């Protein structure tokens, strides 16, 4: 067929095709700001010609396909990077909060508190009998304990906060995987009629959101289905099915199609979840553990020194601050349940008894021997309870073990007692004549007995002749010297999925603290740098993606004009064909 009819038919096809192209452009322009939208392009192609009088005449144009401009390679890279970036962003935010907790720019920083604490002991050594100095060392002890406690509480609260966020995030993840599964089902249905471009864009956008929460791998099948997995291949979406994640305690579990669940917590490395889990299971536990070690070192060193000394007067009664698990268990063994059982060694300590006028009873002390693996709380109490009669006094002193398995020493009739020369560390371990109580950053506190009676703060030591001198500062001097002494403190490393390991660091407590704080700074700094690094890679990839899939208004406008002209021209074709037909018809009437 040829002639005017053919022109008309080509014109009709051209009008339809150009208008279709303009429709697509308007869709593109309308979606210029839609997240996840991929630019669509009209693919026009010439209709195969048909033979006429020995020639092949083309039959015009048709809209062959609406192409969705995507590059799955770039999309996948972008999605992976998005997971990394989200993880880093969360880490950066949490680390900057943590470093804010440990800020040393105020006068309330931990290191300032520690220095002030040691210096307060110097002030006590300058005036051992001074009440203000004793009040201040008590105050400094309280402040130092509070600094440790509040940091420990804040870190714990942050961990709890992560746990709360996890459960709501898992709901989001489950909602997203459900939507992806649902969309896949629709896409497969639509693929039969044509490309489901916009549904695919939506699915891709949901997938991107999902990647922001958790590291995922996605694979699109020929039929339009999509498989999404996380961690070590745990399926989140397969065809029209989605598999949910949920919390069991504080662990994230994957629910298989059966009834079983698998703990996948440690396989989650990316997305906000990955960042939060790193914070919760690696960083915060490390800082908690290191702070505990530091608090433990301070508590032990101070208590051990304190238990060697004596206050302005002896005790009328004292109850151990640390309870054992049983009264018949050897004190130096783990079974004793004492916080510092491992510090107890074979040795002895001296106990001195004074009458109501302060005069030494029996002109000598009583040595109490300790065998770390043998001596039990009961045996120690039995050894102690007879010292009064042994020294030649009436029944004025008793040692018992109370219901909590604490050592209770009581003097009556105005008698007092004091300790010296403890080589076994048993007094410090039992919490007798100690400064702090507790064994970690969360539990460190002032011994309430000292807070009540500051005269019991041991600035001096009982002399070899049993004298307690008000101006004796020998114990306070040893105490203030602790800040210069090297000690071995553990430093922990937590890695998810691995058992925590620790190594010993030898140095002063102050040096441990400053290297601890500097390690927080380094962690925060590296989180920032990694975030920046990932951000720039992410930006490059996003540009690459947008250069394939993004809408450029300039381009669309140009194309719009192009198709508009073609449309006008095609319309002209119709007029031309009309005129041609008219010419022919006029021939007939003539």
């Amino acid at each position, binding site marked *: 067929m040829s002639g005017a009819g053919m022109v008309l038919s080509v014109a009709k096809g051209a009008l339809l095709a150009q208008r279709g192209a303009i429709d697509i452009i308007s869709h593109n322009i309308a979606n210029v700001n839609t997240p996840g939208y991929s630019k669509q392009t009209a693919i026009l192609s010439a209709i195969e010609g048909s033979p006429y009088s020995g020639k092949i005449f083309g039959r015009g144009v048709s809209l062959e396909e609406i192409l969705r401009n995507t590059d799955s390679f770039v999309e996948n890279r972008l999605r992976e990077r998005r997971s990394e970036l989200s993880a880093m962003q969360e880490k950066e935010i949490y680390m900057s909060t943590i470093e804010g907790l440990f800020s040393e720019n105020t006068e309330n920083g931990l290191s*300032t508190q520690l220095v002030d604490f040691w210096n307060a002991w110097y002030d006590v050594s300058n005036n051992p009998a001074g009440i203000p100095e004793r009040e201040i060392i008590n105050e400094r002890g309280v402040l130092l304990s509070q600094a440790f406690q509040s940091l420990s509480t804040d870190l714990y609260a942050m961990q709890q906060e992560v746990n709360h966020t996890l459960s709501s995030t898992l709901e989001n993840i489950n909602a997203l995987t459900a939507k992806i599964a649902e969309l896949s089902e629709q896409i497969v249905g639509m693929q039969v009629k044509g490309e489901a471009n916009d549904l695919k864009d939506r699915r891709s956008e949901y997938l991107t959101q999902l990647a922001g929460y958790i590291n995922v791998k996605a694979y699109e099948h020929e039929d339009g289905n999509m498989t999404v997995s996380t961690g070590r291949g745990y399926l989140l979406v397969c065809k029209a099915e989605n598999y949910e994640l949920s919390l069991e305690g504080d662990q994230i579990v994957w629910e298989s199609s059966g009834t079983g669940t698998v703990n996948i917590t440690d396989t989650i490395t990316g997305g906000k979840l990955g960042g939060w889990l790193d914070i919760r299971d690696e960083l915060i536990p490390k800082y908690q553990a290191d702070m505990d070690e530091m608090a433990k070192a301070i508590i032990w060193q101070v208590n051990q020194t304190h238990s060697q000394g004596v206050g302005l007067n002896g005790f009328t009664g004292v109850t151990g601050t640390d309870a054992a698990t049983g009264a018949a268990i050897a004190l130096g063994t783990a079974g004793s349940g004492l916080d510092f059982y491992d510090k107890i060694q074979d040795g002895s300590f001296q106990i001195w008894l004074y009458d109501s006028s302060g005069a030494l009873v029996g002109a000598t002390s009583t040595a109490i021997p300790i065998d770390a693996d043998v001596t039990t709380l009961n045996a120690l109490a039995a050894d102690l309870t007879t010292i009064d009669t042994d020294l030649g006094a009436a029944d004025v002193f008793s040692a018992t073990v109370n219901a909590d398995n604490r050592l209770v020493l009581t003097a009556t009739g105005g008698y007092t007692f004091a300790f010296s020369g403890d080589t076994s560390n048993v007094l410090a371990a039992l919490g007798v004549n100690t400064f702090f109580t507790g064994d970690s950053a969360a539990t460190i506190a002032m011994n309430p007995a000292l807070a009540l009676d500051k005269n019991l703060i041991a600035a001096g030591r009982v002399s070899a002749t049993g004298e307690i001198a008000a101006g004796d*500062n020998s114990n306070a001097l040893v105490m203030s010297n602790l*800040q210069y002494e090297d000690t071995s403190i553990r430093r922990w490393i937590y890695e998810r999925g691995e058992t925590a390991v620790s190594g010993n660091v030898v140095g002063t407590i102050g040096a441990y603290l400053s290297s601890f704080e*500097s390690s927080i700074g380094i962690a925060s700094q590296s989180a920032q740098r990694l975030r920046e690094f990932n951000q720039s890679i992410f930006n490059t990839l996003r540009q690459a993606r947008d250069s394939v899939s*993004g809408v450029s*208004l300039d381009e669309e406008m140009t194309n719009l004009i192009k198709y508009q002209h073609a449309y006008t021209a095609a319309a002209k074709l119709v007029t031309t064909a009309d005129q041609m037909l008219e010419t022919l018809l006029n021939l007939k009437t003539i």
Partner: protein
Amino acid sequence: MRISNNSVYENIKYNLELATQAMIEANNVVSSNKKINHLSDDPVGLANVLDLRASLADIAQIGRNIGTGQSWLSAGENALTQIEDLLAQTKTLTVEMSSATKTASQRQNAAATVDGYLRQVASLANTQVNGRYIFGGTVTNTQSFTFDNETTPTLMTYNGNNTAFAIRIGQNSDIEVGRDGADVFGTNWDDDNIFKTLIDLKNNLQTNNVGGVQSAMNMLDDNLNGVRTKIANTGSKILRLDVKQSIIDDMSINYTERKSKIEDADIAEAIMNLKAKELAYQAVLSSSSKVMDLSLVNYL
């Protein structure tokens, strides 16, 4: 590369973000005057700063310790110098009174003077600093020396102990600033005790025992020598504290300087930096606004 509209806007946003952040950081440095505003700004520098801060606090504390020591030592020096004066006067009086030309009543009068000296020495031996006895060893809360009988003393009792009160002026470095009273005033009641010398002298003057008065002279010489040794020793301790004080003053300046180098901002540099960041920010703003205005739509 094909640039989509989204890319243009995302890029503008990102660049504005970077420029704002850089400007805010530069502004933080200027307004806080510190280079290290967060632990992460310079973790290694921060560790040094913390160490230096601890050392500075330690130095300040040692300074306070030295202050305490100096007040003790100068109180001690003061008391000892006065005791030296009193003993020297006693000696002059003794020389005078050992002369055969003196009468019993003159010696009686002299006895009253010696009694006055004795009481002055006793009161000096009980010198206190901030309510603490400095010649009582570490028994600082009990009067160091008491007469057996206030009106007619025959014996002086020492209530202190033999451990002198010490302060710390550095790691493992103690200095005794108080004194063991027995060591200053004589350890042995029968031999070289200053109080015994004075009590005996007074009694001998009262009873007009010229021999006894003469024999007191040797004792007074011994006592004077003893006190002078203590004065010299106190002087050398004061000097030692002065030297220590000037050393820690130097250290303090040195540490402060080092700390400042690490954590304090060079204000001129910081302001220049802020200006540069401000300029960069303005450049981003102006170029971005130009780019955002451009569109083919405007020309169709």
